[in-house]
């Protein structure tokens, strides 16, 4: 019994992201001007059945509102989801992470708390495994772009949904996060996010080649070509998008067919 497909090895992942606030999925441009995009549980199920390889739910105002993430939204969303499910936003402690795993998350994503107290990465990884810990990095290019003598891309890490600059370099922080037990990097380009003009491929490549763990590119997806670019030029292991999927602009299967035609291994049929 064979599907007639050849073995293509590990595939590049397409991840649908749900930015959630107050229990609803929203989409903004460059982290502001939020509009309602629907119910998280419904959208997660819809994306999974239409071919998304993974679902990420981010509570984008948990940190800025200084409140815990909405556990029942997570539980409700996880209930009928049989693809990997990551939850982030407002994870500050091992207890926060444990509550999310109990509610059905497979991985948690930490951002602000990891920068403020990096020991939390190790703590969660030791209890739940590195594969369960995603380090989310929101990065913005420094003015002037390329500054390093090695020709590396300089980008600064931001916290609290892009509200606070840290002075930390994105590549350097990604390396540290890996060494502390992070299992994947979710790299969001704040410059590109919401623009639909394409991913920041040079920045993604800079981070993806600096670490030995998977890097998920985020911010800027607007067309199938953008995904081709971020997998080829950006060396990304996975690419994440939100709005282009929510409003049905892009069908995940169609997107994957395009990637496959471009020679990028994807999970298809899915």
């Amino acid at each position, binding site marked *: 019994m064979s*599907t007639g497909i050849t073995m293509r090895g*590990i*595939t590049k992942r397409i991840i649908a992201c749900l930015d959630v606030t107050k229990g609803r999925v929203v989409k903004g441009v460059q982290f502001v001007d939020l509009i309602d995009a629907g119910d998280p549980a419904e959208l997660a199920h819809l994306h999974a059945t239409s071919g998304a390889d993974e679902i990420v739910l981010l509570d984008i105002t948990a940190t800025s509102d200084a409140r815990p993430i909405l556990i029942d939204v997570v539980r409700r969303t996880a209930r009928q989801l*049989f693809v990997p499910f990551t939850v982030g936003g407002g994870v500050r402690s091992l207890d926060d992470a444990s509550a999310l795993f109990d509610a*059905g998350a497979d991985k948690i994503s930490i951002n602000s708390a990891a920068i403020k107290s990096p020991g939390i990465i190790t703590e969660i990884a030791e209890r*739940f495994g590195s594969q369960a810990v995603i380090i989310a990095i929101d990065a913005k290019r420094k003015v002037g772009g390329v500054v390093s003598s090695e020709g590396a891309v300089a980008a600064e890490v931001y916290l609290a949904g892009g509200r606070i600059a840290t002075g930390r370099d994105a590549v350097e922080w990604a390396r540290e996060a890996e060494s502390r037990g992070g299992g994947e990097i979710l790299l969001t380009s704040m410059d590109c996010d919401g623009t639909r003009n394409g991913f920041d491929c040079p920045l993604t490549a800079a981070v993806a080649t600096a670490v030995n763990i*998977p890097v998920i590119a985020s911010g800027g997806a607007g067309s199938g070509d953008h995904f081709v670019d971020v997998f080829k030029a950006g060396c990304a292991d996975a690419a994440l998008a939100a709005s282009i999927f929510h409003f049905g602009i892009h069908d995940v299967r169609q997107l994957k067919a395009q990637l496959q035609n471009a020679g990028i291994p994807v999970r298809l049929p899915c």
Partner: protein
Amino acid sequence: MITLIDYKAGNLTSVRKAFSYLGQESVVTDNPKQVREAQALVLPGVGHFCTTERLASSGVRDAVCEAIGRGIPFLGICVGMQWQFAGSTEAPGTEGLALFEGACERFQTTLKVPHVGWNQIRRTRQGTQSRLLDGVPDDSFVYFTHSYRAPVVDGVSAVTTYGETFASAVERDNVFGVQFHPEKSGNTGLRILKNFCSAAERSAR
């Protein structure tokens, strides 16, 4: 009734949820007595191989061996499958069940480790009769996340390639194991769990 073994590592919610979706009741326990009396056993697992040490110290390991000896279907997932081998270089002092020969080792590849994402499984010659993989076409995609991999030895029913070829499923009599996460592998994974439920039902009769 499926008994899920809790050894305080990783996360049982997803596996439980998948069984519940399939209409299969499950119970979670770390009690050796309950393990010994189970009708079907599942050892989910993520994380470090050394966490299986707890199974030995708590008496669960002996209970699992007894249950297997009685012919109870036993499914190991991820580290749970690795535990069915002799051991792992991840934790050299920790003994596995040695139901399959050889030890798990870290990937020897220039590719990124951990191996994370959707990859394909292909049956070995032994795997053509696999009950666990019944109805699952070769080259189906399943979700992996691991840094150590089991060797391709007698009893391996499916293999996967990531820089090198490794055991992605094992099966012998009433013992089943998968390196990937069936609870996270969409319809393919649900089919595999359903096959395990069928094995459990046959055994209960």
